């Protein structure tokens, strides 16, 4: 038992908080992620994380809670991506890229100003890589509220959004406001991504949004089941990652421990690779893409 779990794993306060928060974030990201992958909006999902980082560094500068920076800039970016209103997938990625480029420019400025005026060094690494062990307990109620909002939005939007994603013309004929549903979904994704950025950093946010969902959609074709599988894979990756990171404290070369983000990302990537080994009706996939 002690070989697997180093002493103190279950009694350590920060670790327990990390397990709970990380698990909750993985579930929400897994649910939202299935729709993201089905709609082919991985780039937007990743962009919102980077844009949230710009908001976070701006909030550091103003001295307000980074939470507000993440949410405000995330929602604004989601709105402007939709406003540029490009319906075809190719031009939609360009619109995402333009918004992302502008936001990253702002991030460069904010981080520069952070470093020169407020002498908070290391903001770059904190915002990008996050530190799940350093999350303060006071964030839990807000994070829970966010998670609730995002999960609720997914449940409410689920059917119309799926129809609008698979067949926009049919959805419009049935009276679904395709653009409104798309916007609502983008805003829900912005909330979910802000939440995960804030707790686990921008890199893990993208990894948990896309990886488990991508693997789940290869294992099953039913959306509901894919959501369950995706959430489960996400939680498994986070918990295993935290465990490995905790155990790695005595690993070479430095004896400082390896970062959680590396373990979680590597596990997510392995899950995705493994899922391609037993993908249903593999031969039809390439044509369907």
């Amino acid at each position, binding site marked *: 038992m002690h070989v697997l779990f180093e002493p103190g794993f279950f009694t350590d306060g920060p670790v327990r908080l990390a397990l709970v928060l990380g698990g909750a974030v993985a579930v929400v990201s897994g649910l939202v992620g299935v729709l993201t992958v089905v709609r082919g909006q*991985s780039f937007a999902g990743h962009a919102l994380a980077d844009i949230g980082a710009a908001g976070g560094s701006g909030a550091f500068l103003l001295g307000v809670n980074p939470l507000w920076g993440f949410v405000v800039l995330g929602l604004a970016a989601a709105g402007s991506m939709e406003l540029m209103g490009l319906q075809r997938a190719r*031009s939609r*990625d*360009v619109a995402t890229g333009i918004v992302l480029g502008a936001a990253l420019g702002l991030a460069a400025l904010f981080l520069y100003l952070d470093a020169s005026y407020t002498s908070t060094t290391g903001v770059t690494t904190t915002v990008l890589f996050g530190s799940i062990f350093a999350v303060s307990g006071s964030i839990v109620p807000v994070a829970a509220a966010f998670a609730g909002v995002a999960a609720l939005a997914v449940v409410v939007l689920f059917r119309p959004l799926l129809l609008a994603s698979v067949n926009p013309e049919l959805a419009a004929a049935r009276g679904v406001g395709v653009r409104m549903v798309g916007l609502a979904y983008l805003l829900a994704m912005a909330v979910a991504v802000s939440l995960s950025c804030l707790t686990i950093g921008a890199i*893990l946010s993208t990894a948990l949004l896309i990886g488990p969902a991508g693997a789940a959609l290869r294992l099953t074709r039913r959306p509901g089941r894919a959501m369950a599988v995706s959430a489960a894979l996400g939680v498994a990756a986070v918990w295993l990652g935290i465990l490995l990171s905790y155990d790695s404290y005595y690993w070479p070369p430095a004896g400082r421990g390896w970062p959680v983000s590396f373990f979680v990302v590597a596990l997510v990537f392995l899950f995705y690779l493994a899922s391609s080994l037993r993908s249903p009706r593999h031969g039809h996939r390439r044509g369907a893409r």
Partner: protein
Amino acid sequence: MVDTLWVATLVAMVAGAVGFFTVLRGSTFVAHALPQTAFAGAAGAALLGADPLLGIGTFAVASALGVGWLSRRGRSDVATALVLVLMLGLGGLFLALSAQYSSQVYSLLFGEVLGVSTTQLGPTAGLTAGSLVALALLGRPLLLEAVLGAAADPRGRHRRWLEGAFLVLVAVATTMSVPVVGALLMFSLMVGPPAAARHLTDRPWRALLLSMGLALATVWASVAAAYLSNWPVGFYVGVLGAGVYGTGRLWAARRRRRRGAHLAG
């Protein structure tokens, strides 16, 4: 300052040209991801004590091949996202193991263009020339494929090679520019000016030249502004790149409306 302008000029030419095909093919996400993988390469090279350029090149090309390989077996945006986070995760690991300062992360992501030295000029010029020659060779088939899709090559024989060659080209362009100008600047230049050029003219070769010209103008204005104000270059390039695109779209919309009014009247 003169060296900076030279390097910035070279980078803008490559970014404008490669970016045109990136926007045409809709591979914006790849253009965002590949420059960022350079971060893992640089951190890995620092851990092993190797030449950073070698590390960046290896990781960028490996990521390009990885994206191409995974894209053939699934959704390409998912593949890009996963390769990107894997590389960033590795970079974080290398950084943690070698205990470097995080200011290096900042400069790799956002660039230190005003700190360019003369020794960087030679390799940059060589890689620029190589990228532009490769693009001249690949230009026609890439254009054909972007416009016609699968019809350009019904049996799909050359498509895989073309896709791979293009991704490696983006990787090479990245290797050259990221240590000098940062991942963010490279990405902004590969998206804003080319997208604006596409709205301004329908002719592909004219759009390509226009894209390079707009990228040059953006970079020169940004370097000048950064030099005067002491704020980071990345900020100006990011905001100006988006501004160029917005102006281009407004201009195109106005012209279309006027032409429509002319025809109606």
